[in-house]
């Protein structure tokens, strides 16, 4: 026990001597939070639009007014020809071009279906999708107006029929902001980086310098060494999680709705996996560079993609979905999103917590075994 404390003490002493590392662990979380919170947004508030009205009639103008009035579109320019329209899309000045063809009004008066062309810049796939939704919304509303107007004018009575109106309520994130979805997940991302990467580097550094050998020659037991090396990074992990949770509240006004202790408890369960993986990477790397590359490219990046951090798992092929079941980050992000946004707790998340505990213990046990074998 005392031996472990000595190693922990030494680890913090070394940490203190490395001011760069110190500031990284303190400020990097906040920086990351700000980046993700402000930059990684999939929301589309105003669609830059160019309009090419070939019809130039009352009806077409009314339609344009509808677009403006909807609040989704910002009209950048009114074009006079196709070339101009194309230019705006190509240069990315507009995301959408609305082209109202000639005879638009005429066809409507003839009670024919008039068409409207909407051109999207598909290189922004996600935004285009959302914009297309906005366009449909505006057009549907307008055509409904035309129908009811027509009925009014022709003096026929509008015969009410049963219809369904979907009233949409979004819970937990009423404004449907990407930020609210991303920021809680950053807690998971951060803790992965700090515990996994720093642990690996700290161990491989000793290997590189040769002090690990020096330690093996002492009567120290491998398990003491493992615990002594891991505990400091658990503490650091908790510190940065606390920083993120506080910063999240101050900067974005996202408070933890659920139990903070449960959040930390789950973080602890999650750390079992990341420390185990860190330990594992340290057994297969000879240099710090190797350890860095392996941690980032072979562990952290795949783990992020398969965790549902940014891309919904439901859209992935089945085999990859299956693979995601062994990704501990997936369960932890479930918990952070749940606890922070919904205020859910152990009652809902016990399967996640159990999965974390199981995966964590297995990974940590196997890695510790491998590490121990390597030492001997």
């Amino acid at each position, binding site marked *: 026990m*005392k*031996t472990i404390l*000595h*190693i922990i003490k*030494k680890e913090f*002493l*070394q940490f203190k*001597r*490395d001011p760069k590392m110190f500031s990284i662990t303190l400020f990097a979380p906040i920086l990351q939070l700000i980046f993700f919170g402000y930059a990684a947004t999939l929301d589309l508030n105003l669609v830059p639009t160019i309009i090419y009205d070939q019809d130039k009639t009352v009806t077409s103008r009314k339609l344009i007014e509808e677009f403006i009035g909807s609040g989704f579109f910002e009209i950048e320019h009114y074009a006079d020809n196709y070339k101009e329209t194309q230019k705006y899309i190509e240069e990315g000045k507009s995301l959408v071009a609305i082209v109202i063809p000639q005879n638009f009004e005429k066809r409507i008066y003839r009670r024919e279906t008039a068409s409207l062309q909407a051109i999207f810049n598909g290189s922004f796939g996600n935004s285009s999708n959302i914009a297309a939704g906005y366009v449909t919304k505006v057009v549907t509303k307008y055509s409904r107006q035309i129908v009811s107007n027509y009925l009014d004018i022709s003096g026929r009575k509008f015969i009410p029929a049963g219809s369904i109106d979907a009233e949409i309520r979004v819970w937990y994130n009423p404004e449907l902001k990407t930020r609210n979805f991303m920021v809680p997940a950053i807690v998971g991302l951060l803790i992965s980086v700090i515990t996994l990467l720093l642990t690996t580097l700290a161990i491989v550094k000793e290997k590189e*310098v*040769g*002090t*690990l*050998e*020096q*330690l*093996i*020659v*002492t*009567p*120290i*037991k491998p398990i003491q060494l493992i615990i002594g090396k891991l505990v400091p990074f658990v503490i650091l992990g908790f510190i940065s999680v606390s920083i993120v949770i506080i910063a999240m509240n101050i900067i974005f006004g996202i408070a933890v709705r659920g139990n903070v202790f449960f959040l930390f408890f789950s973080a602890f369960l999650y750390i079992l996996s990341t420390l185990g993986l860190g330990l594992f990477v340290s057994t297969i790397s000879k240099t710090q560079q190797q350890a860095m590359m392996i941690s980032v490219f072979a562990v952290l990046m795949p783990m992020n993609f398969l965790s549902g951090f940014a891309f919904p798992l439901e859209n992935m092929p089945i085999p990859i979905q299956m693979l995601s079941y062994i990704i501990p980050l997936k369960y932890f992000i479930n918990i952070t999103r749940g606890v922070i946004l919904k205020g859910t707790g152990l009652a809902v998340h016990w399967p996640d917590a159990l999965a974390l505990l199981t995966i964590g213990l297995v990974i940590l046990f196997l890695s510790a075994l491998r590490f121990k074998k390597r030492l*001997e």
Partner: protein
Amino acid sequence: MNNIIEITSLRKNYGEIKAVNDVSLSVNKGEMFGLVGPDGAGKTTMIRILCGLIIQESGVVKILDKDRSQSRKEIQKNIGYLSQKFSLYGDLSVDENIEFFAEIHNVKDYFKRRDELLDFSRLKPFRNRIAEKLSGGMKQKLALVCCLIHEPKILFLDEPTTGVDPVSRRDFWKILSKLLKDGITIFMSTPYLDEAERCNRVALMNAGEIIALDTPQKIKEKMNKQIIEIVCSPVRIAYQAIKRNTMLEVQMFGDRINVVVENYKLELPSIKKALTENKVQITDERIISPSLENVFMHLIKDAE
């Protein structure tokens, strides 16, 4: 308990390479034992097995009368190991490094011993300096101090003076002789034969095998040959000329060659003839008694 280390038929392979091939030897208590040999002879592997860093394929190692593979903890408590690259924590100070190694050895009252060690290694003025900022020689002394803090009975040194300046080397040897006086057994490997000559006993190691083991004096006597040393130029041509024209063993040393002969009176004329024919300039020639280096090269040649 006279033999503090007892090795019996030790073997260790790295794939096809027999790093340690059937080595048996014993080290007496309180002696300085030298393991000498060219790079790749298996010296480091031997020391690493003795320190418990790697495990042998077969064979028994007994240290302090205890089986290496069974009483790990007890043995580790009583040994110190200085590796080739003096491993220290570069970001900790001299004092902190010593403190850490004392603590993980569970040495409680290390302050007095630390001061003593710092005194005689002359590191005291630098005790608050970060280890990284020490010179090479000081780093090596600090590493030595770190492995002495728990008062080990046996000290293993793996090429401790490789890459260290001559002044620090002399300092280092002074420390070692003091340790010997204190009764510590030292087991060291070295590529330098002048250092081997200072050992009580030397084992010559080549290709995983011990090819000679005795006091330096006796090893030299065993050779029972004469050495003609010829200072000449160009040395390489002289070396090849003798090799081609005579059956004699030639060794090349910088600006001179050494020829191993049974009787110099018989051989000298033919050697000189071979050299003059090849237009080699002879500056000096003399008969010397075999050095450990001569013996070693001779033995390695025989082994091949």
